[in-house]
């Protein structure tokens, strides 16, 4: 936004100088001074075009980055739902597990789902059992581990993640 305003200011100055030069030429004719002013105005006009091209590149770059991040986050959501299905979680358990992954505690999940905390605790216990983990941190680790090592064949996780990081080499997690 600031860049856009700056580019406008630059354009305004260019219009000013070109108008000034044209006015001078009409009133006084061409002399060395005016020729130099014309060159300055021309240079400024070229500057505006290049600043515009640079801004275009900046916009393109930030959009690519945003798109890559959204691909990555979509891929992560895919990963979660595939994993939940493979654990054969019931719909209610999937909901609870997702809330747990998002960092809500038992009381909050109970409130969100309109159920008793005891029910949520039992559902979470079944999720942990099906996922073969013993707590929430381990449950989350299942996914972050998959995300970083690019497991789950068929999901194309590796390509999605590497495009999200702009093709930088992925950091491999240290062996446990």
């Amino acid at each position, binding site marked *: 936004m600031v860049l*856009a305003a700056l580019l*406008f200011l630059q*354009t*305004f100055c260019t*219009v000013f100088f070109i108008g000034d030069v044209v006015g001078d030429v009409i009133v006084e004719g061409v002399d060395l001074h005016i020729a130099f002013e014309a060159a300055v105005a021309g240079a400024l006009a070229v500057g505006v*075009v290049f600043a515009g091209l640079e801004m*275009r590149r900046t916009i393109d770059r930030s*959009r*690519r980055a945003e*798109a890559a991040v959204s691909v990555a986050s979509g891929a992560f959501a895919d990963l979660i739902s595939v994993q939940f299905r493979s654990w054969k979680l019931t719909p209610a358990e999937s909901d609870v597990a997702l809330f747990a992954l998002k960092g809500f505690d038992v009381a909050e999940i109970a409130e969100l789902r309109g159920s008793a905390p005891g029910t949520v605790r039992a559902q979470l216990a079944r999720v942990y059992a099906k996922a073969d983990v013993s707590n929430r941190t381990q449950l989350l680790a299942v996914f972050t581990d998959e995300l970083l090592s690019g497991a789950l064949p068929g999901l194309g996780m590796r390509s999605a993640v590497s495009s999200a990081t702009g093709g930088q080499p992925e950091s491999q997690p240290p062996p446990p």
Partner: protein
Amino acid sequence: MAAIGASAGSGPVWDPIVRVTHWATALAITVNGLIIEGGSTLHLWVGYSALALLVLRLLWGVIGPEEARFSSFPPSVAGAVAHVRDLAAGRHGSHPSHNPAGSLMVYALWAMLGLTVATGVVLQTEPFPVEIERHGEVAEYDDRHEDDDEDELTEFVEETHELAANLLLTLAALHVAGVAVESRLTRRNLVRAMIDGAPTGRSGE
């Protein structure tokens, strides 16, 4: 790049240049058309700002991102008619840039703004009167034109300037009405998209 722009939402994501030039031009037209008196120094400067905005936006139409380019919204009367018919029938597709009816309006607004600014510049003999303190400079210039032909020409340009300005204001009002109708029918917040560049996802989705 079109794919990315389109994938972000169901409507265009306007870049900062489009948004800044849009609102600044709207402000300039409102101020010069409805608030400031013609012929005042401020009027001239606002007019020159509008010219710079127009120049910048037209440049952006060549070098800007996909949805800001002229090639993304060619003027087409048939397309505009079809679009209005679709809207009336309750079909609203999404457009990567201006919708066909909007495109026509954009070109009409630009043409009218260009004419208004051009005639305005011609009316002002001295470009960029900086010295506001030198009262009556404009009048001074007018006094020098004692040639009758020139007076007639000046009058013609002045009339054209006023006519173009009034047409511009009318078009702007139509433009606002069009946006309101389109926003309502498609349940997309087109105004917000132009303010903060958010994709115009349908509300409730």
